[in-house]
């Protein structure tokens, strides 16, 4: 195969696609505006990186100075805010049901009496566990308050017994625990959620684009036209005069499903048939497809850069780590393009391709093991999780950007994504060849 012919196929196809995108604002938006807005929106959603001031209620049945101290400690916790003091449980329950508050701390009647007489004096936390995020944070914070109170009470008691305060602190807790969160130490939700959700959304958008870019040619029965144009340059599909193109537009979008008249269709199909069965060249097809996906690839490599720029924390992450992650993200996006195309070409239908895309990519974040840990995913579901490219990419993303792992640890994932991308690309080419040979199946909705 002449290299000139291949580069021509690439350039013609890219020019063809450029014309399409400039004339179809919806498709253009899918490549440019929607992904850009999505990246920024997600970052914006989590711009307050810490959860603060979750509203809780208090029922103080004790009304002692120690109980007041407890309420003050609760109020002082940055993650909590005491919305209101309630006087009956029914009242407080109603407030939980209306979601005015997410928990009630009950200080029982004999709280201070128990403390003074050296008996354990429990605090009761009733928490709305249906709201898992809220509940988890409230539990940790109230637990911390109870711990502070306990330590104060215990140390005071030991001091009363005549122990030096410093010694009392040690006696209270002979083995202290230093709790250290390696990486993302500030439990920053922007790092945790936003930085992983953005690649998940780019993956979804890329699969949709992958499906539509080739799928619309199938639907509009223009696949044969496109191939003839990229391999021979005739008829020139990029240089239609403005008049023709706009009338074509109206014909496309509005009139009778953008189809050519019946007679035309038949002649196109028979034409296509002769052409394709004899002379479809796989390499020309491959370069044509690369040209067709050139603009989305270019656009998404910018969005990927933006996503990683946002996700890279202030403390320096090694350049090699950022590069490895970027390579991984680009591969994930390219793989997504080809996978969307494979599902569309496999079913000969843009609609089915998009359905499969939605089914696979939309819930993939739930299976990726970020919010719900991978090791806790049920055994059978783990096979599905392993089959999703997003799972592997996010492993690489977290290891490189948040855990500062050496690049070598994550290279197998980059290689794996590269192999998967190559296979999906080859498959797309072969399936396009098959699609060209079956013009009678074009036009499915």
């Amino acid at each position, binding site marked *: 195969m002449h290299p000139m012919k291949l580069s021509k196929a690439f350039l013609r196809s890219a020019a063809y696609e450029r014309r399409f995108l400039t004339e179809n604002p919806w498709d253009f938006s899918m490549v440019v505006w929607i992904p850009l807005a999505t990246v920024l929106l997600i970052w914006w959603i989590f711009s307050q990186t810490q959860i603060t001031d979750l509203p809780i209620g208090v029922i103080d049945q004790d009304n002692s100075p120690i109980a007041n101290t407890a309420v003050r400690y609760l109020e002082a916790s940055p993650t909590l805010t005491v919305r209101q003091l309630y006087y009956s449980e029914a009242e407080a329950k109603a407030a939980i049901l209306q979601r005015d508050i997410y928990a009630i701390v009950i200080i029982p009647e004999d709280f201070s009496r128990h403390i003074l007489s050296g008996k354990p004096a429990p605090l009761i936390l009733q928490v709305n566990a249906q709201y898992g995020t809220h*509940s988890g944070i409230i539990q940790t914070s109230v637990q911390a308050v109870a711990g502070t109170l306990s330590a104060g009470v215990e140390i005071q*008691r030991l001091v009363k017994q005549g122990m030096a305060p410093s010694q009392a602190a040690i006696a209270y807790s*002979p083995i202290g625990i230093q709790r250290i969160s390696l990486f993302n130490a500030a439990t920053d939700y922007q790092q945790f959620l936003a930085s992983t959700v953005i690649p998940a959304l780019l993956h979804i958008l890329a699969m949709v684009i992958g499906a539509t870019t080739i799928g619309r040619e199938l639907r509009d029965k223009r696949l044969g036209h496109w191939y003839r144009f990229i391999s021979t340059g005739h008829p020139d599909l990029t240089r239609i005069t403005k008049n023709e193109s706009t009338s074509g537009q109206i014909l496309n979008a509005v009139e009778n499903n953008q189809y050519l008249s019946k007679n035309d269709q038949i002649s196109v199909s028979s034409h296509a048939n002769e052409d394709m069965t004899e002379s479809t060249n796989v390499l020309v097809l491959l370069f044509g497809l690369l040209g067709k996906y050139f603009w989305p690839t270019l656009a998404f490599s910018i969005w990927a850069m933006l996503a990683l720029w946002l996700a890279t924390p202030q403390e320096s992450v090694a350049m090699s780590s950022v590069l490895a992650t970027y390579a991984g993200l680009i591969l994930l996006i390219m793989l997504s393009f080809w996978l969307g195309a494979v599902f569309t070409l496999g079913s000969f239908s843009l609609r089915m391709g998009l359905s499969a895309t939605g089914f696979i990519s939309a819930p993939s974040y739930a299976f990726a093991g970020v919010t719900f840990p991978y090791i806790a995913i049920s055994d059978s579901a783990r096979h599905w999780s392993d089959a999703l490219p997003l799972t592997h990419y996010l492993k690489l993303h*977290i290891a490189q950007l948040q855990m500062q792992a050496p690049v070598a640890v994550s290279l197998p994932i980059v290689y794996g994504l590269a192999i998967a991308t190559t296979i999906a690309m080859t498959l797309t080419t072969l399936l396009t060849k098959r699609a060209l040979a079956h013009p009678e199946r074009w036009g499915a909705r």
Partner: protein
Amino acid sequence: MSLPPKDHLSSTTSDSTKQSSTPSFLASFLQTIKDIFSDKGVLLLLLIAPIIYGFFYPWPYSTEVVNHVPVGIIDNDNSNLSRTIVRYASASPQLDTQLFLNEQQAKEAIWSDEIAGYMVIPSGLEQQVLSGKAASVSVLGNGGYFLLNKNVQMGFLKAVSTVSAGIEVKKNVAQGAYSATAAANTQAVPLVIVPLYNQTEGYGAYVVPAVSILILQQTLLIATAMLIGTWYEQRRHATSIRGWLGRIAALSMFSFIIGCFYYGWTFELHHYPRGQNMIGSLLFLLLFCPTVATLGCVLGLWFRQRERSMQILIFSSLPMFFVSGYPWPADQLPTVLQIIRWFIPTTPGINTSVQLNQMGASISQVSTGFYALAALWVFYFALLMWVRWHDTNKALKTVS
């Protein structure tokens, strides 16, 4: 799949002449049902996809609670005390321990996802404790994964506290305290946690009831916009006000049935809290489904093409979930988003459904949600009527 509903398209375009006479509510209702059943794409999205999702989405969470998290221990002390700590940690149901020789090894294991965190017992720990000096162990959890980190910290905390309390008790007893009170004394203010509603604190029980409302919305939205978009291509989209109401009723009916399937079957199957206020839940669906269907009609008229609803809407589920106020507290959102989010039906929808069906709130306690949904329905319907008026005006102009 591959067979286009071609014949159906051409046959129905021919009766589009009939449609200029204003169809009744019932006629439009029945025609829409007929069209849904003869359109595989719409049927797949409206009926089959949400049923599959009902099984598919809870799948990863079937273990519900995270236990036996693999962790490492580096014992630099190698004393009786440190071995006791190791023994207690390995007995914890939350942890699955393994020993490492040094921190570097443990870190490498974290990087390759073999363990989720580790504890370092420093050398000389026993010595320091025996001589009454301050001593501590370090627990290092992986901040990259929140839920795991919590497990690692809590698991080690419990094990070490137990050992630590044992030492404290021994000392107190030596100092002449009664051993019963001394044992009870270990925490002067213990915290009794009572989880309400989701009493097992399962992850699936937390996330699935909310996500199913999102699934309900997205499938109905995409299917409706697809059907209306297809009709637009065929020039069959115009109809009377009653005609639109009939269409909305027909489309909502399918999602209402799916909603009942979720409430009555999916949640039951996975033992999620459910059915606390069944009448309220059904009333909610009765309002939620038409609201979503009406928005779907507006989007269909905007997209004007069969496949476009999928193309545009597939990605929107995740952002919509995050602004709903369920997984992420709404008052943490930027102020502008706190307003914009109310234009999405799931914003009042998810909370209202969870409050009614999982928590058992009364209807008056979720009245805000009901009012918000009703207001959204009115808003979308007004939009729909505006588009309709706009279209007929344009049609009249081109005729004259």
